[in-house]
């Protein structure tokens, strides 16, 4: 016979198991039921995105297709390329990896999107003089000349470089037609861990504009006093519902924009040539992956210098520094920081995009 106490406990346990999960209180940035952008899962299923097989190869100097991203610098023709990706997804590392080739230089972020926004505002309104021709064409041409000119100036740091690069964490936008673009993709759960560390270290823009100081400042102060604070209290890093949902939603929005642009690349309406590289694949086989990336630019992998910790081109770091932009460089670290609540919030805000990007098969993780 079952004792009355045991019956009560058993009933309570059953009620807990059967109870529906509490609904998150904050809406994601995009509706969850939006269909996958590329129409299949995973959304990123290839390495090179180009409108056709012929345009996957780097064309030679002087070819029509390379004209818009070719620039004369120090009396020598050179080409421009871009490294993009979501913030905290490894754009720095990718830049250091490609930089080990003598023909390639990529030293940092130019942030051309600020200039692009200015240009778009200049031509947007019909009462602006640049809204109509021929000023509009002059504006677009001038924008591209500015990009080429600014990138050309970077050759002073590495005069032998043929490829001049910009490495800016941003979504895919075309600034120079057909310019090769490396897009790095990373498991968004690892991105959130890294991003939260950076935001809390610097009281970053999302932390500040999202008005999180009231709730998170005490945690931030603890973290600033003790760099291992979140290592020892991993449940606190993303343990604030609105905070976790905001970061996940922003990643989803960025990813949605990228997938939409990639769809345009395949259709030929977005004039770009994109090499999609996964952070995890680069981590697992950095030599193999970098050789493929060098070939994408048409340079010989055999001429590349070795990867090293000094140049920050090797995967991971021997010493972890939670305050630094070069924090840990690990894969799958999210498992330590994602509590059941955080998982639920993430699935609510961006679970569909996680599946579309091929990091999970369904929501049962």
């Amino acid at each position, binding site marked *: 016979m079952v004792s009355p106490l045991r019956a009560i406990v058993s009933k309570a346990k059953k009620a807990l198991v059967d109870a529906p999960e509490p609904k998150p209180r904050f809406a994601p940035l995009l509706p969850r039921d939006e269909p996958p952008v590329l129409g299949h899962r995973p959304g990123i299923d290839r390495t090179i995105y180009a409108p056709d097989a012929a345009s996957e190869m780097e064309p030679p100097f002087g070819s*029509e297709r390379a004209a818009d991203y070719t620039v004369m610098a120090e009396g020598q023709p050179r080409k421009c390329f871009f490294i993009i990706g979501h913030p905290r997804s490894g754009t720095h590392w990718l830049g250091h990896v490609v930089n080990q080739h003598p023909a390639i230089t990529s030293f940092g972020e130019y942030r051309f999107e600020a200039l692009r926004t*200015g240009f778009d*505002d200049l031509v947007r309104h019909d009462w602006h003089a640049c809204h109509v021709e021929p000023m509009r*064409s*002059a*504006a677009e041409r001038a924008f591209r000349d500015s990009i080429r000119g600014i990138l050309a100036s970077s050759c002073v740091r590495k005069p032998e470089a043929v490829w001049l690069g910009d490495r800016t964490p941003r979504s895919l936008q075309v600034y120079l037609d057909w310019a090769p673009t490396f897009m790095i993709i990373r498991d968004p759960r690892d991105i959130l861990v890294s991003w939260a560390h950076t935001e809390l270290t610097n009281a970053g823009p999302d932390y500040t504009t999202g008005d999180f100081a009231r709730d998170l400042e005490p945690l931030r102060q603890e973290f600033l006093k003790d760099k291992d604070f979140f290592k020892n209290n991993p449940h606190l890093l993303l343990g604030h519902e609105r905070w976790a949902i905001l970061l996940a939603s922003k990643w989803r929005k960025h990813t949605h924009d990228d997938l939409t642009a990639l769809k345009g690349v395949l259709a030929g309406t977005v004039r770009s040539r994109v090499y999609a590289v996964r952070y995890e694949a680069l981590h697992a086989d950095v030599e193999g992956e970098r050789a493929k990336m060098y070939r994408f630019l048409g340079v010989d992998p055999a001429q590349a210098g070795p990867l090293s910790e000094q140049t920050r081109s090797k995967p991971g770091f021997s010493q972890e520094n939670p305050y630094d932009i070069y924090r840990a460089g690990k894969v799958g670290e999210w498992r330590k920081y994602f509590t059941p609540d955080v998982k639920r919030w993430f699935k609510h805000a961006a679970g569909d995009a996680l599946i579309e990007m091929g990091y999970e098969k369904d929501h049962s993780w």
Partner: protein
Amino acid sequence: MADERPGSSGSRGGWARRVKSAVPAPLRRALKPLVAPLAPSPVLRHPWMIADRRTDNAWTIDTGERIHKFFFITGCYKSGTNWVMNILNLHPEVVVKGEFHFEVLYQGVGPLTQVPWFLSSREPARTVALESTNDLVRRMMYASTRDKPDATWIGDRTPRGLGEVLPGAPTINIVRDGRDVMVSWNFHHLRVPDVNRLLPQFRHLGEREVPRYKANPNAFKRPSAGFLGDESWFRFHARQWAEMVRCEITHAPVFREHGTPLLQLRYEKMHTDISLARRELFAFLSLDPAAAAPLTRESKTLPGFSTAGPQEFYRKGATGEWQDYFDDNARRWFKEEAGDALIAAGYEEGDAW
């Protein structure tokens, strides 16, 4: 699908490109050394690129055939910037074509060249970024001169705060009594063809007021009519005017310090003595006033407008009209938002108005 954006390589097609694409690639490469010298230079393909040929200053170019100089007209919205433009356009050596709004471009260039961790904020990229921005300003203004190609002076008239676009370029700034500006602004917004042109926060007001105004404009010739009766609209625009005045007060000494030519005009003084203003304007650009066409009602260069139609862009051009449109609330709101600027601009001595 071909990209038809202007300036993209896809839109640069023509017979030469079609011929080129019809020739097999190996033959094209072989012919290149022979054909290349015959190809048109970038300047011929993009005539506005001639504007990159600057002289020793950023606001003068030498095209080889003539010297062109750039200048700017600034001031608050509804303060008479159009009037100044129309007067200057009477001269055969001046062309001013509307509002470029380069300030929005500089909102992008600012972070690009100033945020310390952006590479464009470090040399040599910073200088390249700033110079290429000057190039594009000159190119766009030069591109606007097609119907008056012989003009020496090329101008931009943008309602904005006083500030340098091309370093050292002569600038004309006009100021008008902010209270008259408010009245003119009110009618300007009542006349918008599409309420979506209003700032989002004022569209609901536009949806209510604009159809009423169209039905009976005469009913709006009274205090607090239309947008003037709405506190949030009124305060927002009074603040904008005050900011423009403060901008002039802050930047005029900087212009003088840099040796940048600056002509400061008053709408009311122009109204009183337009002949003097006309002489000042042409003298500022070292032009002979005798070469300019006379001021006429048709060219909208005489003070005020004979039609005074409330439905027209050039509505009335009157001074002191605010006294017929401001009620006690409007006076209070204006004093609170822009009273100090009104005094600083010399329109009142204190708050007792």
